[in-house]
């Protein structure tokens, strides 16, 4: 029995490891750009090349892993609603809608459009001029903004003293130069600042690092939360915590955590969309040249109210 348990446990551990390992390696064709994690949203297996000339039943997206889940969600909705193209528009042939969304980072997204390996590229940053030049005839859609608010616990008196932090102060807090709250403002308690962040390699931290920290590294003993939800929970639970909660999460937990102004600008929808609020990045989709009618039909859905609603549900600020 003892042996059996240990044997069983061996296998359980091994399987646990196997599953951990599986997570990141869903497929590995297309090695040149290292962009995978493919998500196929195929309704039916047997869809041959289009009968009509020039008609493509398949649309491919590649790029930012921030935007990929949003696109997948919209695509799933689109496919569920119409199933075949002729339901979208009677002039289209009766073929199953196929939309592929794969994530590989914003760089890979731009590259795939330049090289023509996918129809659309998803970028979670501004498109660079050189990329625009290489594409030649870019068609850019702004879907929304991904914004982070510098939030604190409502019990922290800081927001009564001043509801505004300069980028310099934020940088000092997150880099560990300010270790105690009374260094930020002398009237505060002498309590250690608890810095909460997301994992360093992730998209959210990327936005923060680029817009606030620059080259300064974040303090090493900051708490790395496994999800944005956990980060927000930590701020709600801990009086002395500060962290960058996403704009969407702050709205869902209104009153439980206080977002501060950054350089005097309040994180409101208007300020985020017009770009004056600093800690944000645009979420855009790029296409080379004109859209085909079927691509246009899908992008109309993305830009519609319904698309915006999904974008908002995912925690971003829709642009439309």
């Amino acid at each position, binding site marked *: *029995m*003892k*042996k059996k*348990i*240990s044997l069983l*446990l*061996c296998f359980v*551990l*091994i399987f*646990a*490891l*196997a599953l*951990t*390992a599986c*997570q*990141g*390696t869903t497929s*590995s064709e297309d*090695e040149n750009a*290292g*962009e*995978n*994690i493919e998500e196929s949203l195929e309704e039916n297996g047997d869809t041959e090349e289009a009968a009509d000339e020039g008609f493509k039943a398949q649309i491919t997206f590649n790029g930012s*892993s921030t935007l990929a889940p949003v696109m997948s969600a919209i695509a799933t909705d689109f496919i569920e609603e119409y199933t075949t193209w002729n339901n979208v528009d009677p002039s289209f042939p009766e073929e199953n809608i196929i939309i592929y969304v794969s994530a*590989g*980072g914003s760089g*890979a997204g731009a590259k795939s459009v330049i090289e023509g390996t996918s129809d659309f590229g998803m970028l979670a940053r501004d498109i660079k001029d050189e990329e625009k030049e290489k594409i030649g005839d870019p068609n850019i859609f702004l879907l929304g903004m991904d914004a982070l608010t510098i939030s604190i616990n409502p019990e922290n008196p800081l927001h009564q003293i001043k509801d505004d932090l300069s980028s310099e102060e934020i940088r000092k807090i997150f880099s560990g130069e300010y270790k105690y709250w009374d260094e930020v403002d002398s009237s505060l308690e002498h*309590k*250690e*600042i*608890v810095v909460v962040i997301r*994992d*360093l*390699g*992730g*998209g959210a931290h990327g936005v923060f*690092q680029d817009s606030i920290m620059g080259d300064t*590294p974040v303090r*090493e*003993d*900051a*708490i*790395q*939360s*496994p999800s944005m939800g*956990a980060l927000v*929970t930590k701020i709600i*639970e*801990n*009086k*002395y*915590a500060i962290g960058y909660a996403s704009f969407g999460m702050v709205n869902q937990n209104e009153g439980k955590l206080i977002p501060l102004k950054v350089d005097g600008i309040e994180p409101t929808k208007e300020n985020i969309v017009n770009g004056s609020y600093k800690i944000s990045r645009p979420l855009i989709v790029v296409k080379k040249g004109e859209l085909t009618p079927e691509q246009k039909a899908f992008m109309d859905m993305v830009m519609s109210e319904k698309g915006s609603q999904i974008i908002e549900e995912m925690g971003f600020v829709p642009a439309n």
Partner: protein
Amino acid sequence: MNNLQERIFKIIIRLLTLFSLLLLAFIIIFIFRESLVFFEVVPIYKFISGTKWNPLGPPDQLSILPIILGTVYVSLVGIVLALPIGVGTAVVLSSYVDERPKRVIRSVVDILAGIPSVIYGFVGLLVLVKFFEIKLFFPSGESVLAGGIVLAVMMLPYIISTCDESMDKMYKEYSQYSQALGVSKSYMVRKIVLPRSKKSIFAATVLALGRGMGETMAVMMVIGNAPIMPKLLSKTQTIPSLIALEMGMAEVGSLHYHALFSGGFVLVIMLLIVNILLYFIENKMDI
């Protein structure tokens, strides 16, 4: 005809056995292959002896000594806390409790083992971490100690069932003799049951160590995930939590991605060592 059936049966059984063996081999080979890319850039001794983990920095800032130590530290704290409780429970179960309540307690302990680890992590986060912050005035409750306590609860069922089994045997074997000699029950437990269960206590410890080092979710939620040198009351990070935290966002094929696999490889090696150790203990230790 019967002969043929027999042979087909034999072949199928053997194939199935082979399959499970190959599975283990493939997993290890796969992880090794993925981490090889990284070890070509950063040699393995640098990887496990360096003290800095920064996925945004240059490749030589990807090393996991603090994380390895964190993994071991959290498990050890868990064992230190769980062992006395576990062994004590096993003694009571084997020697002091009647057959019927024993069965009830055992099934309760088994249920403890069946609770998903996220639940433990969740309770740990909301109760334990908060308790540290509010009652003990920690700036943040995430710590090695919090991870150790959560792990201890998760290890308990393994320690109890492993120890209980051999103690039960000892007790049944010797209770008549000691009653005949008129020694008290506690004397018998101290002089016979406990010393003779040494081996299974040790085996339970090693088993729990392996369990603790591989635990991901519950630990990840309460240790703060900061890749710094672990101290009992400060934050830390373990290899499984590191992989779970960063694998989702690591770009496939990047050095960071392969470094995470290398971390997994180190963990597999550590767990293999623990399990081999267990095997030797079970075979070599007398009694």
